[in-house]
C-alpha cells in the first residue's frame, strides 16, 4: 500500500509518558511532511534492559528497528552496528551541537549517532531551609556536608526525625557510576579511564572523593541511599525529607507539581566542587539517535534522524517536554527559557558535562562501569575502604582491558 518510494521506518524512542508523546508528535510531523510511514517501537525504559535488547537485535542483524534512541554511553558499544551519519548530515548542522557530545558520538572517525537531547547531574536544594538556617549555597562537597548536617540536626530536633541531609543515586547500577564520576572529576581525579585508554582511577584524589562520599552514608544520607536509584531519592526529597539531592533535570517539573509538598521551596544549581581546588562537574547524560546498519532504508532513516535532531524539533521538545537541547543556540531562546528558567543559568553545566569513558572502552564499557560502580558501592556500604577498592578496581580493569588495550 502507499506510494512507491514511500517506505515504513520504525523507531524506538522511549516507551511511556511524556517522552513517548513528544517523540510521537515529532515523528508524525516528519511522516506527514515526507509521506513515509513510521512505526514507534516501545522498548523497556530501564536503560540496561534497553541496551540488552538492542544488542540482541543488532547481533541478530535484525532490521526490525531502523532508528535507535541510544544512551550517551552506548556509541562505543554499538558502533559496529550503526551507519556513519556523516554521509547524510550536513556538517554545518553538526556544528550547532555541543561539541563534547558530538565528539562522544564519533567512534573510529565515524559519526554513529546524532545528539538528540542531553542530561547532566544537577544539584537540587531546599532554598527555604537554607534561608531558615542562614546558610549559603554550599560550593564544595565539604561545605555541603557541613550544611547538611546542621540542617538535618536542626530539623530533627524540631520534630522531623526522618530528615536527611543529602540523597543521591547509590544503588549498584549505572547511576552510581554517573554520581561517582561526578565526585571523582570534581576532585580532579579523572574519569576512570583516560582518553588514551589508560586506567587512571587508582589515585589519591579519587580515594579522597570516595572516602568523603562514604562518610555521608548514615550520617547525612540514609543508609538506604546505597540502594536508591533516581526515584527513591526523589521520593525522599519531594516528601520534604532531604535538604540536598543530586538528580537529573527531569525532577524539576515533578518537584513543582500540584501535589508536591516541596513545591516552590526548591532551587537548582551546579553540583559542588571537590574542595577549593576542585571543579563543578556534572556527568553527561542524554540520548542520541542512530541508524541501524541492517536498516532496509538507511537514507530515509537518516532523514528522520536529521529531522528529529534539528533545531526546530529540539526547540519544540524543550518547550513541550523540558528536554535539554544539544544545540547551544537554544539555551538563549526566549521561549525555551520561559518554559525552563534554569536552562540559562545551567548552560555551563550542560556544556561542560564530563563524559563517561564509554568511547575509549567501547564494547567493554558496560563491564568497566559495572566494576566501577561495584567498587564504589563496596566503599559506600563500608565493606572496603576507598583505597583498597580502587586498587582492586585497577587490577580488575587491567584484566578486563587485557592490559589497557580495550
Amino acid at each position, binding site marked *: 500500500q502507499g506510494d512507491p518510494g514511500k517506505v515504513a521506518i520504525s523507531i524506538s524512542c522511549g516507551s*511511556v509518558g*511524556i517522552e513517548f508523546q513528544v517523540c510521537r508528535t515529532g515523528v508524525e510531523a516528519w511522516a506527514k511532511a515526507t509521506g513515509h510511514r513510521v512505526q514507534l517501537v516501545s522498548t523497556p525504559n530501564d536503560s540496561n534492559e534497553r541496551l540488552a535488547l538492542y544488542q540482541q*537485535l543488532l547481533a541478530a542483524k*535484525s532490521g*526490525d528497528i531502523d532508528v535507535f534512541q541510544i544512551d550517551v554511553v552506548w556509541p562505543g558499544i554499538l558502533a559496529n552496528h550503526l551507519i556513519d551519519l556523516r554521509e547524510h548530515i550536513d556538517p554545518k548542522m553538526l556544528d550547532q551541537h555541543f561539541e563534547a557530545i558530538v565528539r562522544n558520538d564519533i567512534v573510529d572517525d565515524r559519526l554513529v549517532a546524532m545528539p538528540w537531547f542531553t542530561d547532566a547531574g544537577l544539584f537540587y536544594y531546599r532554598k527555604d531551609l537554607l534561608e531558615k538556617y542562614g546558610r549559603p549555597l554550599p560550593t564544595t562537597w565539604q561545605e555541603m556536608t557541613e550544611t547538611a548536617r546542621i540542617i538535618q540536626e536542626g530539623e530533627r530536633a524540631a520534630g522531623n526525625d526522618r530528615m536527611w541531609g543529602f540523597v543521591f543515586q547509590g544503588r549498584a547500577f549505572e547511576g552510581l557510576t554517573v554520581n561517582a564520576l561526578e565526585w571523582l572529576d570534581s576532585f580532579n581525579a579523572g574519569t576512570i579511564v583516560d582518553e588514551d585508554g589508560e586506567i587512571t582511577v587508582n589515585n589519591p584524589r579519587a580515594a579522597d572523593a570516595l572516602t568523603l562520599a562514604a562518610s555521608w552514608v548514615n550520617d547525612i544520607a540514609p543508609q538506604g541511599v546505597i540502594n536508591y536509584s533516581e*526515584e527513591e531519592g526523589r521520593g525522599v526529597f519531594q516528601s520534604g525529607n532531604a535538604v540536598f539531592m543530586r538528580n537529573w533535570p527531569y525532577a524539576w517539573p*515533578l518537584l513543582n507539581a500540584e*501535589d508536591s509538598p516541596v513545591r516552590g521551596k526548591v532551587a537548582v544549581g551546579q553540583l559542588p566542587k571537590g574542595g577549593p581546588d576542585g571543579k563543578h562537574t556534572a556527568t553527561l547524560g542524554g540520548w542520541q539517535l542512530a541508524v541501524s546498519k541492517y536498516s532496509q532504508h538507511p537514507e530515509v532513516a537518516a532523514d528522520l534522524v536529521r529531522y528529529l535532531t534539528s533545531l526546530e524539533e529540539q526547540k519544540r521538545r524543550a518547550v513541550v517536554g523540558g528536554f535539554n537541547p544539544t544545540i547551544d543556540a537554544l539555551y538563549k531562546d526566549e521561549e525555551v527559557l520561559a518554559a525552563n528558567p534554569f536552562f540559562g543559568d545551567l548552560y555551563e553545566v550542560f556544556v561542560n558535562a564530563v563524559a563517561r569513558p564509554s568511547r575509549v572502552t567501547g564494547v567493554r564499557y558496560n563491564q568497566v562501569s559495572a566494576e566501577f560502580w561495584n567498587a564504589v558501592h563496596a566503599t559506600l556500604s563500608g565493606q572496603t575502604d576507598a583505597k583498597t577498592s580502587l586498587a582492586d578496581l585497577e587490577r580488575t580493569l587491567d584484566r578486563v582491558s587485557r592490559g589497557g588495550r580495550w
Partner: protein
Amino acid sequence: MRSRKIVGRVLFYVLVAFIVVYTVFPFYWAIVSSLKAGSGLFQVEFWPSNPAWDNYVGVFQGQPFGRNILNSVIVAVSVVVLSLFIAVTASYSLGRVQFRGRTTLLLVVLSVSMFPQVAVLSGMFELIRWLGLYNNLLGLILSYMIFTLPFTVWVLTTFMRELPKELEEAAIVDGASSWVVITRVFLPLMGPALATTGLLAFIAAWNEFLFALSFTLSNEMRTVPVAIALITGTSQFELPWGNIMAASVIVTVPLLVLVMIFQRKIVSGLTAGAVKG
C-alpha cells in the same frame, strides 16, 4: 484438664492467625498501596483513607498493559494445552508401557526439569532467532516447553501409573488400541490430574520472567511479569510504586481465583505426583 485443652486451642488459633497474617499481609499491603494516589503512597497507612483508582487507570495508560495481559493469557494457555497434549501421550508410554530406554528417558526428563534457565539462554536465543520467532509469542510458547513439559510429563506419568491396570486390560479385551485407551478411557479419568498439572504449568508459564525478558522486544509483545518489572512512570526515572502495586494486584487476582478453585485438587494432585515423584 479442660482448661489445658482450652489453652492449647487458643495457642493453636494464635498460630493459625500468625500464619494467615504472614502469608496474606504482603498481598494486602499491595492492595492498600495500589489504592493510594500521589504522595499518599509515601505515608504508612494500614487502611487507605480515601481509596483511589488512579493507579489502576494509570497502569493501562502508561503501557499496553491490557495487551500484556492478553499476551500472558495466550502464552500460558497455549503452553498448558500444548504441554498437556504432548505429555498425556508421552506419559502413557512412560507410565504404562515397558520398553528399553524407558528409565533413561525418565532420567532425561527429570534432569531437563532441573536445568537452570540461564544455562540454555544463549542457545535458546539462537534457536529462537533461527526459527524466526524472536519477539513473537510463539517463541515464548516454545521456550516455555523446557520447564513445563518435563514437569507435566513427570507428574502425569505418576498419575498414569496409578490408574488401575484392569481398566486398560478391559479396554484391550474390548479391542481398544493404545490411542483409544488414552483418549477414550484414560483421558476422561484424568480430569483432576490434568486440572492440577495444567494449573501448575499455567502458573509457571504465567510467572516466567527470564525468557520473556530475553526473547521479546517490544512492549506489545511482553508478558505481564516483564511488563511489571519494567513498569515506569511518566519519565525515564520515575518508579511508580502505586502503578506497580496496581499491576501486581491485577495479575495476581486471576491466579488467586484459579488457586482457590483448585486448592483441594492441588494437594491431591501432588499426593499422587510430586511427593512420590
